[in-house]
C-alpha cells in the first residue's frame, strides 16, 4: 500500500533525505515495493550490468553473473560463488600488536592483542574496506551470512528466481 518514488529511495540510500522525511518512512509500515526499488537504485550506482540479487554490504553485492551467482565488489571485482565465504578471497590486514592497533586508536585505550585481534577485509582491486571483524587470535575467519536466496525470493518477495541451468 505504502510506496515511495524511486528518487526518494535513492536519497534514502544515499543518506541525503531530510531527517523528518526519513523518520516518517521509518515510522510508517514498510513500503511493499521497497526491495526492488532499492536494488534498482543500487544497480544504477554500479558500473557493471550483472543484475544485483541482494546487497550484502555498503559496496558488496550478490549478483547474477552469467550462470553463476557471485559476491561482487562495487568496482566489479568478483569474490566467487556467493555460498563461499568471500572474505577468504579478500586482502586482509590483521592488527594483532599494540603498534598496529595504535594506528587506528591513537588517543584511547587498546584491546589486549593477546585476547583479541582486528581483521580488515579489503577488495584486492579497488582497496575498499568491506568488513571488519574482531575475534580471538586463532579463531577462524567468520562466515557472516549465507543467504537462502531462493527462499527469500520465493517466500518473501513472491517472485521466484530463475533456476540456474547448471547444477552446482
Amino acid at each position, binding site marked *: *500500500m505504502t510506496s515511495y518514488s524511486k528518487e526518494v529511495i535513492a536519497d534514502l540510500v544515499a543518506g541525503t533525505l531530510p*531527517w523528518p522525511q526519513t*523518520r*516518517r518512512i*521509518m*515510522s*510508517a*509500515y514498510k513500503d511493499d515495493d521497497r526491495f526492488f526499488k532499492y536494488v534498482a537504485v543500487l544497480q544504477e550506482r554500479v558500473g557493471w550490468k550483472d543484475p544485483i540479487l541482494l546487497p550484502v554490504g555498503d559496496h558488496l553485492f550478490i549478483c547474477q553473473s552469467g550462470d553463476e551467482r557471485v559476491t561482487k565488489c562495487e568496482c566489479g571485482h568478483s569474490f566467487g560463488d556467493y555460498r563461499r565465504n568471500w572474505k577468504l578471497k579478500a586482502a586482509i590486514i590483521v592488527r594483532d600488536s599494540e603498534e598496529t592497533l595504535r594506528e587506528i586508536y591513537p588517543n584511547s585505550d587498546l584491546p589486549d592483542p593477546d585476547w583479541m585481534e582486528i581483521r580488515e577485509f579489503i577488495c584486492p582491486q579497488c582497496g575498499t574496506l568491506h568488513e571488519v571483524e574482531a575475534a580471538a587470535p586463532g579463531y577462524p575467519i567468520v562466515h557472516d551470512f549465507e543467504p537462502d536466496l531462493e527462499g527469500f525470493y520465493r517466500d518473501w518477495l513472491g517472485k521466484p528466481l530463475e533456476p540456474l541451468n547448471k547444477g552446482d
Partner: protein
Amino acid sequence: MDQITTNPIVIGIDAGGTMTDTILVDQDGHFKIGKSATTPKNEAEGFLASAEDAADAWGISLQDLFSGVNVVLYSGTGMLNTLLSRTGRKLGLITTKGLEDMILMGRGLQAWADYSYADRLHAVTHHHPDPLVPRRRTHGVTERIDQFGDVVLPLYEQEVHAAAKKLIADKVEAICIMTVFSHVNPAHEKRIAEICREEVAAAGADILVYTSHEVRPVIREQSRLNSVLIEAYATSRGRKQLKGIEDVSKKYGFKYGVQTLLSFGGLTSINHPRLHETMISGPIGGILGAAYVGKLIGNDSLICSDMGGTSFDMGVITRGQTRIENEPLMDRFKLNVPTLHLDTIGAGAGMILKVDPLTRKVSLGPESAGSDPGPICFAKGGTEPTIADCDAILGRLNPHYFLGGKVVLQVEKARKVFEEKCARLLGVGVEEAAEGMIDMLEADANNALRRVISGQGIHPSEFTLLSYGGSGPLHLAGCSRGIGFKDIITFQFAAAFSAFGCTTADFMRRHSVSTQIDIGAGASDDELQAFGAKVTGVWNDLTKAAVDEMVADGHALDKIKTVPFLMMRYTGQLEDVEVMAPLSALRSADDMRKVIAEFEAVYAKVNHRVSRYGEAGFSITELGLIATADKVKPVLLKRALGKSDPAAAHKGVREAYIGGRWHKANLYEMNLLQPGHEVIGPAIIEHPATTLVVHPQDRVHVDEWTLLHYTHA
C-alpha cells in the same frame, strides 16, 4: 442574541496551527465568532480575514469594529514557527567551562518527546532537535559559583574577552550567557555581559546580549539555557508578527496597543520583555474559559477537553486549583516557563488512518492531514483517509454546511478512497469500517480522560466535562461515555472557546526566583520569623520589578493588584505545589505558620488529605509574585428557560449512521437553540464551525446561560 445594538469592545483572536478563531464581545457580554485559515508567513492576513468574518457576523465593518474596541488580544504562532523553521537569529553562547557540550547533549527526553509510543520504543528514530547554537559558536570560560552562591573559582576575564571577540568576528546577532548557579548569584553572568557589551561597543557592532538570570532566574540549567536561547533566537520575528497585527489594527482605527496571552494565563502587551513566555498560549485560553464557566455553573472541578484536527488537549481544574507545569516542552526543548498544565494525546479529526495490508492492524495517525491538503473530502489534494472523511461518509458532517458552506465536502470521493484503502483490506462494509475508526479515536480520548481523572485522586462524578474545539462536540458522545461525569457541557461557540477564554484573562505579570529555604518540622519561633523575613524580602524585590513593568505598559498604579506565591513541597519530595500566599508580608512566626497551613491545605486539595506529611519539614523552592490589572470580560447572558420543544431550531432530517445502522436524524441549527430546549437523539446539531452529534436516546438540553448539556441515555 439576535438583536444586538451595541458594538464589540473586545476582540479575542487565537491563531492555531490550522485555523485562526476570532471572538467579538460587547459590554453586555454578547459575542460572535469568526474563523479563517492561519497564514503563518504573515499572520496579519489570517488575523484580518478572521476578524472580518466575525465582523460580518456582527454586521459591522472592520473600520467600525477596530475603532470601537478597547482591547485587541492576539495569541499567535510567530515565535513557534520561527523556532520550528529554524529561521531565528544567529546566536553565540558563553557558558561555564566544561559545559560547552550541554547544548549538544540536551536532555535525553528531548530526543523522543512528542513521539508515538511505538517510536519511543524504537531508538533508531530518536533524534535530538537541531541545536539553536552550533558547538563552534559555544565558548566555555573558567568560573564557578556553587549552589550556595559562593565564588569557588573567580571569573577569568581574559577568556571572556577572547570569546566575545571570536563571536563578534563570527558575526553573531546575539550573545547568550548562561553559567551554572547564576540563579543564586548572577555576579559572573553580569560581569560577562559587561565585558561582551564593551567588546561589542569597541568593535562598533550591533549585537544583543542576553543573560539567563534576567530571562529566568530559576534552577535547572538545561531549561534555563533553552529559555534564554529561545528568547534570543525567536523573539525578533515573533515580535515583528505581533507588530504586524498591531499595525493592521491601527490602520482600521484601533487606538491602543495589542495584547497577547502568557502561558500562565494572563495578558501582556506585545512589548513584553520575555516574549518566550507567550509561546505556549493557544490552548491556555481553554483553561481560562473553563474556569470562567465553572464559576457560572457553580462547579470548581472541571475537565476541559479540546479536540481539533491534530490533538486532544485536556486541562484539569481540581476544586478551583489549576496545575502549573514549570518545565514544559516547546518543539522538544525543555523550557523554564510556568505554564498551565495540559495533557495532550494525538487524536483529532484530521488523523490519517492506515491499515497494514499484512497484519490488518489499524492505526490512527499520529500524522494529521492538517488544513493543507486536509482530508480527502475537502478535495484540496488530500489522498489519505482521515477521521473527518469517516464523519462525512457516515452523514455526521453536513457536506453543504462545513464552515458555513465555504467548503463543500466531496463525500463520494472520500467514500471511494476509504473503501479502497481501509474497508476492503479489513473485509468489512464501508460504514462499519468508518464507524470502527471513529470508535477507536473516541476510545483513545475516553481512555486519556479516565487516566487524567484518576491522576487527580477524585471521583469522576465530581467533575464537569467541558468539550470544545472544532471537532470536540462531533466526538463528544464517544469520548465521554461511561465515565460518569457530573455534567457534560458544550457551547454554541465551541470552535472559538479558546479565543473566548483568552478574553476572560486579566493583564498579568508573573515574576519568580528559585530559592532554597528548608524549614524543619520543629522549627522554633525565632527560626520561623527569620524565614518569614527572608521570604518577605524576596517578595518586595519581585513586587517592585513586576509593578514597574506594568506601569511602563501604561497601567495606573492604583489598578494593579499583587499576590505573592510560593512553590512548596515537603522536604525531600520531587514536585512542588503552587501556594497563593495568604499574606503579602510575613512579620512573625505565626504569619509563617499561616503560610505553611495554606500549603498543607492546597496539598490536601490537589492530592489527598491523608497524604500530608509535615514531619518531613517544608521546602520553599521558588518565590514569586503575580501582578494583575482588570479588563472588561464577556458576560454570558442569563435568560429565562422557555418551552422544551426545539421546533424553532429544527431544519430538516438527514440519514446518519450511528451505532451500526442508519437513522433518520433530526437536524437543528445550534445558534437557534433557546434556553429550555431539549433535543433527543438521534439528532445532529449544526453550527457553521462545529457539529454536535447526539446519539440515539441521548439528550441535550439548553440551560439559562445557553450552554448545551449532554446526557447519556
